[in-house]
């Protein structure tokens, strides 16, 4: 097995880039929507054969075992080439959870199935009334013999209609003194009568989000991950590693690239006012990348990131939105037009980018919530 971490950064980057450019299907580059598994299955098989499905997992579980520095390079190259994340909830969320908190039996059973995509996972966190505020969770799981019986509703469950399993936070002790307590982490099959999935149509007409209803759905007690009533802590541990990725420059950088080629094609750079706005946006992205590097360096040195990493997400999502506003401005009379706009030999779906940028300031803890957190945890401002 290759020890990727022993490579120089440059070598490793070359290796990853070479593989992606050679093997990643052209038609899947910069996909404007989240694919169903069938659409990317072919690519997944290639990754699986190569052993590159789970870059962050330890090699003993079938991962690449990359350290933080190499991991960042891996993701940077994926983003650079417009590689779709695929159906990566299993690899990104469930796997690390099981690796960290699961029993040996759970590891043996679930991890290989994640890598092969025999199981396709979705994440059941948000509920109506518990979005940015997970403590309000109301979906219950009650013990009944060897099973949990689950009742309640999840919402904003990405691609639930194309998943075989769900990993979810459920309330297992309704009488816990603090709301954050009494929450547990369970795995459940979607393929049972008590689970109903309804897709949510977004304002752009996409259907990647779902509501999931649980009406006496069942899952074996052995599908509890970690200790009973300790789910909150585990979920937070999982989220903290995500916070730098959600603040990565890639979305904004890609959008800026699209804006630039579109604007060139439309001759928008002939207008000095547009040039100034573009320069502002481009500098916002470049300077954000400088701050991102500072946090990435911390990770690479093996340090833990503090709450201040949230500022990356605030900045980059708002920047992303401004860039897509500029695309609409550059589109002029076509600014309300659905679908790709052709300019020269470039085709840019201006509205799709605009819509994609909208929820970024809402999900992953809205930017308002992030500001609340920063003001308390970083600036120490009083209640």
């Amino acid at each position: 097995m290759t020890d990727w971490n022993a490579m120089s950064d440059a070598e490793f980057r070359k290796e990853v880039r070479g593989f992606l450019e050679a093997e990643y299907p052209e038609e899947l580059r910069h996909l404007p929507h989240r694919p169903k598994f069938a659409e990317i299955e072919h690519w997944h098989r290639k990754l699986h054969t190569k052993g590159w499905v789970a870059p962050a997992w330890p090699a003993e579980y079938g991962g690449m075992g990359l350290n933080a520095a190499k991991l960042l390079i891996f993701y940077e190259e994926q983003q650079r080439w417009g590689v779709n994340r695929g159906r990566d909830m299993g690899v990104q969320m469930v796997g690390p959870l099981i690796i960290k908190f699961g029993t040996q039996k759970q590891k043996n059973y679930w991890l290989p199935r994640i890598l092969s995509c025999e199981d396709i996972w979705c994440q059941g966190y948000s509920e109506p009334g518990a979005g940015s505020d997970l403590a309000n969770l109301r979906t219950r799981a009650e013990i009944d013999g060897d099973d949990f019986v689950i009742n309640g509703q999840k919402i904003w469950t990405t691609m639930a209609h194309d998943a075989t399993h769900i990993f979810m936070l459920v309330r297992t002790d309704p009488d816990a003194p603090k709301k954050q307590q009494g929450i547990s982490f369970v795995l459940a099959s979607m393929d049972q009568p008590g689970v109903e999935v309804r897709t949510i149509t977004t304002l752009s007409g996409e259907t990647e989000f779902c509501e999931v209803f649980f009406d006496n759905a069942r899952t074996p007690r052995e599908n509890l991950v970690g200790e009973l009533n300790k789910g909150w802590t585990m979920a937070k541990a999982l989220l903290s590693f995500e916070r730098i990725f959600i603040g990565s420059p890639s979305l904004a950088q890609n959008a800026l690239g699209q804006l630039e080629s579109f604007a060139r094609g439309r001759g928008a750079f002939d207008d000095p006012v547009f040039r100034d706005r573009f320069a502002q946006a481009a500098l916002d992205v470049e300077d954000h990348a400088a701050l991102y590097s500072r946090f990435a360096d911390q990770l690479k040195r093996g340090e833990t990131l503090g709450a201040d990493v949230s500022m990356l997400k605030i900045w980059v999502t708002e920047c992303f939105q401004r860039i897509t506003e500029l695309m609409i401005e550059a589109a002029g009379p076509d600014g309300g037009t659905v679908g790709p706009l052709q300019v020269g030999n470039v085709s840019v779906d201006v509205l799709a980018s605009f819509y994609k940028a909208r929820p970024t300031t809402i999900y992953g803890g809205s930017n308002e919530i992030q500001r609340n957190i920063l003001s308390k945890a970083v600036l120490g401002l009083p209640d």
Partner: protein
Amino acid sequence: MQSSEQEEDLRLLRESARTLFDRAGGSGRSRKLRDAGGEFDPDMVRELGEAGVFGVAVPEEQGGLGMGLAAGGVIAEEVGRVIAPEPVVATIGLGLGLLRRLCPEHPKLEQLIGGEASLAVAWQERGPGGASADATCRYADGKLTGGKAWVVGAGGTQDFLVVAEADGGPVLVLAEASADGLVTTRRAQADGSSLGELSFSGTPAAELACGAAVQGALSEAVADATALAAAELVGLSQRAFEITLDYIKTREQFNKPIGSFQVIQHRAVDLNVMCEVAQAAVREVLMRMDGETDASIRARLASRAKARAVTAARKVTRDAIQLHGAVGYTDEFDIGLYLNRALVLSAWLGDDAYHRRIWFDAREEEGAAQ
């Protein structure tokens, strides 16, 4: 300061228009039409015609109500409030704006006012970077060749009113939608409507007017439509704000209505102020356009209105989504419909950056002329 009599007339007009749209189903009707794939409702067009809506700004001697653009703005605001998909502003501003100025005797004028005919105006052409300044669509020997773009209401119209170039200068011609050699491509818009791209190859058309008068009337009509589109955006923004205000008063987070958080409160205040400034500015513009005969000043006023209305609508609808949180991103809540309609209305006839430039240049020219 408008006369109190006029003010009262406009108040009554606003009330009856609001009642009419509310009875027809408000924004719910617009959603149903979109879901059904229909762009607008011909029956509603007839009803609006019967109610006198299209003729508000047409002089009485030409069969209208003679209430001026200020009244057109009242109608447009109400259209905006319920995001009605009927091409009301295009009809009042462009269709009737051209006919009443160039051929007031033409039977289409009366039919349009009455909602008995549909007529889409084709005047813009596509250039490499957006709208082209040069018209290449030609009219000769009773036939059209070339293309037109961004035609509002092209889907389902009976006739096109086309501004084309002829040997003697610009002409206004009428072509049937079903005419030979006319290909209409619909480009779907964010709000479920479409804009038409027309391609003519020897399409028969009847000349209605020609010469410099056509160019003059077109500029005036476009100014009217621009200012009315601004009014439509004002109504839209106002309503989007009201919906959002209601939402933040009721939706709870951390066991409190989100409207009790100071940050949300201040943002709501800013949206409110933006709406009020836009409303005051656009209404003032329409009033002043009614009293102004200088075409370039009218155009500058119209640009001022559209610049403000687009800025306001952008801020209000984008922030409205954010204040709604995740549900704002779904199609289940109406607020998304307002965002989508604002996108389309902002792009149509020029956005705020475009109109600020036009406005400033016109201001400089007037200054230089003095």
